[in-house]
């Protein structure tokens, strides 16, 4: 088990392209978040700004505890695409260098191979989740006004569906790469599919926005949405935000009203989807010659 982790680490530790993508990932994450940060700082510095004030008189941004947890978990989902590039390149290399074949000749079986790749997925997801947790704690401190009196830890449970989503998305990338074998084509398929699925899902959500918020749409059962569902961004529920313009909603009068707890059923489905992606990747490898 840990031997497979060790083997996988040997493969990437001295791979310049791996570190290159890690650097791009960190720069993009930092840059993207800084841009959003500046945007909100700007907005919040103006007295009666639509997007961030509420009837309670306190200013609310997407960076306030506790809703920052699922807001940023939702936003950070987009950076998972960069981590998927690592998975796609690492696994397609194993095909093009014929090293998966050689690994099997040397004494791995197909299950070991999938487990070793799952280790990489697990590690990248864990690292990203830990980084995001730290980032949220810092940003929350900066933006949440002290008088709101919210514990910074409330909502931290949203890091769990984020972690599982990350594992699921990278497992999806693994499955596509195992099917397609070629890096370029896998990249195109993974990115194009993610884009299309998210656009379709958001379009449907938008249509029902502000009317029946909790309605279940068929788009919720698309593979990537199954992993998105447990992380509904709270900013869709914020007053004056989004296409529905929830301004009149009297029920929302404090930060706590915006916060909706974790749906464990959705989380279970998300976990199940991960299992299906990994299981299918294993099944494909099993059936095929190496």
């Amino acid at each position, binding site marked *: 088990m840990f*031997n497979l982790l*060790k*083997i996988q680490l*040997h*493969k990437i530790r*001295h*791979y*310049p*392209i791996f570190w290159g993508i890690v650097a791009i990932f960190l720069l993009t994450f930092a840059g993207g978040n800084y841009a959003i940060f500046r945007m909100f700082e700007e907005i919040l510095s103006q007295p009666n700004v639509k997007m961030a004030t509420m009837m309670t008189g306190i200013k609310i941004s997407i960076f306030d505890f506790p809703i920052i947890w699922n807001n940023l978990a939702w936003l950070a989902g987009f950076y998972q695409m960069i981590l998927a590039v690592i998975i796609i390149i690492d696994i397609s*290399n194993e095909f093009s*260098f*014929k*090293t998966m*074949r*050689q*690994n*099997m*000749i*040397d*004494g*791995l*079986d197909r299950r*070991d191979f999938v487990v070793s790749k799952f280790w990489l997925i697990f590690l990248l997801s864990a690292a990203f989740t830990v980084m995001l947790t730290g980032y949220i704690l810092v940003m929350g401190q900066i933006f949440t006004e002290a008088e709101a009196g919210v514990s910074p830890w409330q909502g931290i449970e949203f890091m769990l569906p984020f972690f599982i989503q990350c594992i699921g998305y990278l497992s999806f990338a693994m499955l596509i790469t195992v099917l397609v074998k070629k890096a370029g084509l896998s990249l195109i398929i993974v990115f194009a599919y993610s884009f299309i699925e998210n656009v379709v899902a958001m379009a449907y959500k938008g249509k029902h926005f502000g009317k029946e918020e909790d309605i279940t749409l068929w788009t919720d059962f698309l593979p990537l949405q199954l992993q998105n569902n447990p992380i509904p961004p709270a900013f869709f529920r914020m007053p004056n935000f989004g296409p529905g313009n929830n301004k009149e909603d009297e029920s929302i009068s404090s930060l706590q009203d915006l916060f909706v707890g974790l749906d464990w059923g959705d989380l279970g489905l998300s976990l199940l989807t991960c299992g299906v992606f990994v299981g299918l990747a294993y099944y494909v490898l099993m*059936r095929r*010659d*190496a």
Partner: protein
Amino acid sequence: MDSQSSHSEPNIQKFATSSTQPLVLKINQLTKRYGKLTAVNRLNLEVKRGSIYGILGPNGSGKTTTLGMLLGVLNSDEGSFRWFGEAPDKQQRKRIGAILETPNFYPYLNAERNLKIIADIKGAPHSRIDIVLKRVGLLERKQDRFKTYSLGMKQRLAIAAALLNEPEVLVLDEPTNGLDPQGIAEIRQLIKSIAEEGVTILLASHLLDEVEKVCTDVAVLKFGKLLFAGKVDQISGDKESTLIELKADDNEALKSALSDFPAIRGVNSNGHLVEIIIDGTTDGKAINQFLFEKGIVLSHLNLKSMSLEQNFLELTSN
């Protein structure tokens, strides 16, 4: 065929422990199909401990496909094989060192790091790395990336990797392909010296000359079928033999009838003709008579007398 008739003492092996198994490998009716093409066709082979076993056949005869199945990378369609008397699994592969077709390594890693990965897969101590690199003469180059290596160096690194776990069996697929004469000589020398340490070697090659120079035993493959299996000295040298071309209405019946013909070395289908090799010289009358008694009438018969070696050369050329 010879390989069939030599399956004589299967019961003795039941009681032998795997490390004293006289048979390192036993293949039974192994078959692999790619769509309509049968790349390996009901292959039977036995490899004894300590032999240098050559699998000889022209390009496309199914050598790599056979080895791929034996090494767990290709799924077989029919038949079975046993390494060390055991059903195949990954643990046995750790007792085997093998190279299939090309040396496969991570090009961006240096030799030492590549070997670390393989040592961890095989459960070999990292202290073996310098030992095997020295053995193949690459110790000074161990910090260089694999992609900077020449083909000969890559091939030697692959042999080093195969030796990491002090294997009982070394499987090599065309190890001298594409090398210059000096590289070829080096690799052959290396194989012989490894064999002298008691490692059983299974070597696929399309070169009769190579098999004769290196191997003790040989199996000849063509179109995925076993034509001959036996000692190398049985096919080399200038012994008289005859290549006979035959044709009948039902070539399949012809072939099965021929398997009882005395002194037969190999049976091969070549288009609509059946080719056989016979020890010594013969005349057409004997074979015609033999087949007639089995109810087969020949529509074509042609004899070519030459050395057995020439016959095999003919058989194994494309």
